[in-house]
C-alpha cells in the first residue's frame, strides 16, 4: 500500500458497496466508486438525494460495513468491517439508553474501556458541561427533548475523545431552529476537540453553514459529483447564514443536486428539461 500523506486522516480509494439482490432481484449498486481524502481536522459534509448511499458511505468509512471493492484507511491503517479505535459515530436515530441516566449514558463507553473511575467522572462531567447537560445529569432521556437526547449521544461519543467524528444526520428529526443551534454546538465541539468531523445531512443549508468542504453526491450509486470548498474561517457560527457567500454556496449545491434529486425520485426525464 502507498504511504498516506500525514495531513490525510482518512482515505477512500475506489470504494464501492454492492448489496446482494433479495430473491431473484438483481444486486443493488449502492455506492461508488468513491475516492476521498479527509484532511486532518477538517469539517467535511456530505449532501445528496434520498437513498443515494450517504449513510452507507458513512458506515463503510466507520467500519460498520465492508466495502465490496476498494480500500478505506484511517490514520494509515485499513478499516474493514470493524470500527477502529479513535472513530466515534453519532446516528440519526435516538440511540440514548432510556434505562440509564444522562450521566450513565455518557459514561457507557468509558466503563467498558477499563478507564479509571476518577477519569470517567472527570471526562463525563466535562462533556456534560460542554454540551449544556450538567443540570440534567441525573435525568433520564425520556425527560429530555429530542435535541437534548441527541446531545446525550454526542456526549457519549465525546468522552471517548475520538479523533474522527462521524455524524449521520444527527439533527434530522429536529426542528429548524434547534438544528441551527445544534449546528453551533457541533462547530464549538469541532474547534475545541480538533477532531476531523464528517457530517451526513440532507439539508444543504446545514452543510453550507457547518463544513469546510461539502461533497455533493449523485443519485444511487452515490459518487461525489463535486466537492465545494466553502472558505469559511475556523471561527464561525450560525450567523454566517446571513452572508451572501452562504446563499451562493447553497445555490451552487442545489444546482448540482437538483437533477440528481429528480433522478432519485424517478423523474430522470425532467433533468434534461432543467
Amino acid at each position, binding site marked *: 500500500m502507498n504511504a498516506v500523506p500525514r495531513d490525510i486522516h482518512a482515505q477512500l480509494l475506489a470504494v464501492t458497496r454492492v448489496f446482494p439482490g433479495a430473491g431473484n432481484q438483481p444486486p443493488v449498486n449502492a455506492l461508488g466508486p468513491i475516492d476521498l481524502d479527509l484532511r486532518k481536522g477538517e469539517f467535511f459534509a456530505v449532501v445528496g438525494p434520498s437513498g443515494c448511499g450517504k449513510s452507507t458511505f458513512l458506515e463503510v468509512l466507520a467500519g460498520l460495513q465492508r466495502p465490496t471493492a476498494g480500500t478505506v484507511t484511517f490514520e494509515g491503517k485499513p478499516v474493514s468491517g470493524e*470500527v477502529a479505535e479513535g472513530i466515534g459515530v453519532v446516528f440519526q436515530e435516538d440511540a440514548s*439508553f432510556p434505562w440509564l441516566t444522562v450521566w450513565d449514558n455518557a459514561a457507557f463507553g468509558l466503563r467498558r474501556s477499563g478507564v479509571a473511575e476518577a477519569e470517567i467522572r472527570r471526562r463525563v462531567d466535562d462533556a456534560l458541561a460542554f454540551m449544556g447537560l450538567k443540570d440534567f445529569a441525573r435525568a433520564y432521556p425520556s425527560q429530555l427533548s429530542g435535541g437534548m437526547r441527541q446531545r446525550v449521544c454526542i456526549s457519549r461519543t465525546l468522552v471517548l475523545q475520538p479523533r474522527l467524528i462521524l455524524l449521520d444526520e444527527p439533527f434530522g428529526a429536529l426542528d429548524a431552529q434547534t438544528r441551527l443551534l445544534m449546528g453551533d454546538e457541533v462547530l464549538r465541539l469541532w474547534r475545541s476537540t480538533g477532531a476531523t468531523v464528517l457530517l451526513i445531512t440532507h439539508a444543504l443549508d446545514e452543510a453550507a453553514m457547518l463544513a469546510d468542504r461539502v461533497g455533493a453526491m449523485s443519485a444511487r450509486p452515490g459518487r461525489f459529483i463535486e466537492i465545494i470548498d466553502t472558505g469559511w474561517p475556523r471561527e464561525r457560527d450560525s450567523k454566517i447564514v446571513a452572508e451572501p457567500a452562504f446563499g451562493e454556496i447553497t445555490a451552487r449545491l442545489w444546482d448540482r443536486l437538483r437533477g440528481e434529486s429528480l433522478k432519485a425520485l424517478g423523474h430522470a426525464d425532467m433533468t434534461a428539461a432543467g
Partner: protein
Amino acid sequence: MTRVGLIRLAVIVAMIGALELACQTGLIRHQTIIPPSEMATSLYALLASGAINADIERTLGIIVIVIAVSIVLGFALGLVIHALPRLREALDPLFATYYAVPIFIFYPVLIAIFGLSPIPIVLIGVATAVVAMIIATLNGLDRVPRVLTKVARVHRLDAVTTAMTLQLPAAAPYLFTGVKLSVSYGFIAVIAAEFILSPAGLGRDIADAYSDFNNRRMYALILFLLIIATVVNTVLHMLDVRWAERRSGGRT
C-alpha cells in the same frame, strides 16, 4: 392513593360488602358460600393453629421453583430461538397455538412416569409458564432498536456484553410482561395440579375440604391464595409502573 386507585378499592369493598350482606341475610345459602367475615376469621384460626404451615411451605416452594425455572429457561430459550431464524420460523406456529392446547391432559402421564411427587407438578407448571416467557423474550428482542446494535459495534462490544448491557435492558419491558405471565401461569398450574391429584399442598387441601363439605376451611384456603396472588401481582404491577415511569419520564 390516586383517585382511580380509590375508586378501584371502593368497588372491591362494595363487592365484598354486598357478598357479606347477601350471606348474612340468607340470600346466599351458608352451605354455598360463607360470609367473607367468616372466611377471614376461619383463615386467621387456621394460620394461628399452624395446621396448614406444611402445605403453605410445599405449595409456595413449588410455585417459586416453577416461576424461577420458567423465567430463566424461557429467557434462555428465547435468546437461542431469536438467534436462529429458521428454528424460529419452524416454532412460531407452535407458539401461536400453544395455549389453545389443554396441556393439563399430560398431567396423568407425568404422574405415571414420576409418581405422586412434586416433580409432575413442577413439570406441568413449567410447561404452562415457560412458553409465555419465550414469547415475551422473542417479542422484546424483536423490538430492540437496530441502532443499538450499531452503537455496540462502535463501542467494540462482544456478543455477550452487547446482550447483557444493551439488548437485555432494551427488551426489559417486554421481558417483564413475560415474568408477570409466568407468575400467573405458575400459580394457576401448581394449584390446579395439586387440586387434581397430589398427596399434599394447598390445592389438595382445598379439594379435601370441598369433598368433606368443610366450607369454612375451603373458603379460608381460597381467601389465603387470593391474598397471596393479589400481593404478588400488586408488587409486580408497582415495579412495572415504577420502571415505566422512569423510561417515560413520568409520562405513563
